[in-house]
């Protein structure tokens, strides 16, 4: 009898010790799932995390840089560079803010006359910014060779903004068109043609100037 009681006591003690050791270990653990479930612990962890519609990543913004040629009426053509940020409102419409910079060359008069300069060096800097609304047209796939198809679309675009040229700000309307070629679903190559129209009295009388710009760029959706 006594030995049975002794064995029972021993068993109880060993079981208690076992559990206390376990509970001691559990202090080290991140959560309080039973230790015995250690094998499949990753799986329940995954399933517990509920993913809702709000977790779907939206990629409606597009940011990019461009470089090209811009012709300033009467002042020749020069390299233009800049950046833009677009927000795609629907599959058809997008709004875009852009900023660009170029430099004016000499007018024919300045070249022919030899010395006379109409503008100083710093006045020849032209910086524009604008906000425009674009509309995607002719969407489709463009094929390169036999095995590669890429999404592409033309767009028409128009907007308003400011052109800072020859120490003067000019209210500017821009109209144009462009081509967006998607390398992947989030990287796009773009070609853009734009006419920046503003009034200028730089050469003596008021006139509306057309300043044409052709650029190529790359942009990223995020």
């Amino acid at each position, binding site marked *: 009898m006594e030995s049975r009681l002794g064995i029972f006591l021993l068993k109880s003690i060993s079981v208690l010790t076992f559990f206390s050791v376990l509970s001691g270990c559990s202090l080290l653990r991140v959560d309080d799932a039973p230790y015995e479930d250690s094998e499949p612990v990753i799986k329940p962890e995954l399933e517990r995390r509920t993913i809702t519609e709000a977790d779907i990543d939206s990629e409606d913004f597009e940011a990019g840089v461009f470089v090209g040629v811009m012709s300033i009426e009467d002042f020749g053509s020069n390299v233009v560079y800049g950046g833009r940020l677009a927000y795609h409102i629907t599959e058809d419409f997008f709004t875009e803010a852009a900023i660009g910079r170029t430099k004016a060359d000499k007018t024919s008069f300045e070249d022919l006359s030899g010395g006379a300069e109409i503008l100083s060096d710093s006045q020849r800097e032209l910086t524009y910014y604008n906000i425009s609304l674009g509309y995607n047209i002719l969407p489709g796939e463009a094929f390169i060779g036999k095995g590669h198809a890429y999404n592409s679309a033309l767009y028409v675009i128009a907007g308003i903004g400011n052109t800072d040229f020859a120490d*003067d700000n000019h209210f500017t309307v821009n109209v144009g068109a462009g081509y967006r070629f998607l390398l992947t*679903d989030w990287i796009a190559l773009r070609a853009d043609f734009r006419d920046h129209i503003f009034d200028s009295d730089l050469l003596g009388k008021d006139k509306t100037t057309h300043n044409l710009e052709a650029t190529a760029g790359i942009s990223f959706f995020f």
Partner: protein
Amino acid sequence: MYLFLVAFILLQCLAPGAFSAEQYYKVMVDEAYLELHTGPGRGYPVFYVVDRGMEIEVIKRRTDWFMVRTEKGKEGWAKRADMELTLTPAGEKTLFAEAGFGDFSRRRWEAGVMAGDFEGADVMTVYAAYAMTPNFSAELSVSQVFGDFSDAYIGSINLISQPFPEWRLSPYFSVGGGVIYTDPKVTLVDENDRTEQIGSVGIGARWYLTRRFILRAEYKNHVIFQDKDDNQEIDEWKAGLAFFF
């Protein structure tokens, strides 16, 4: 045992972060089929159809299009209307936020561009507004004025009251204040740059176009509190396009 414990703890720490990158919202096709387009637009061709009962992962969204991946690994774009015919993992109809007229009267954020006339000069305004209630919104706006003799920049905060938010053509009233920075054209006028306070009252209307678009037009009467003796009053008319989100 020790090594096992360390490995186990490490696993515990890493598991949620390490695997969450591969997790996407899942839905099940409940119509006869779901069409996948090559791009996010109705003009891009359909290149694949997913059968009823198949589970798809929703990778991302662009405007009203969703990029999904099938169990077989095909990736393509499905339109919102089609995605709403799918079932969620809980077996309910999937619903995605759509912008419509109802959202117009309940909109929170609005941003837009307006152009017009500022006492004879051209003006261009960019603004963002937040609706605190359907009737009241706060608006932050920046304007650039292109005058013959001077250019100006105006930064202002406006409080806008819209008494009938549920109307499609909805009038509003505004009061606001801010600063105007005037930069005279030095070659023409011998004056210094100046910064003055400006206050305004206005009346205008928003017209809900479609989806997320609003047309907006307004008249404002500004008072510039000048350092000189008299305050200057200015009439401003402008119209523009805005969208809400």
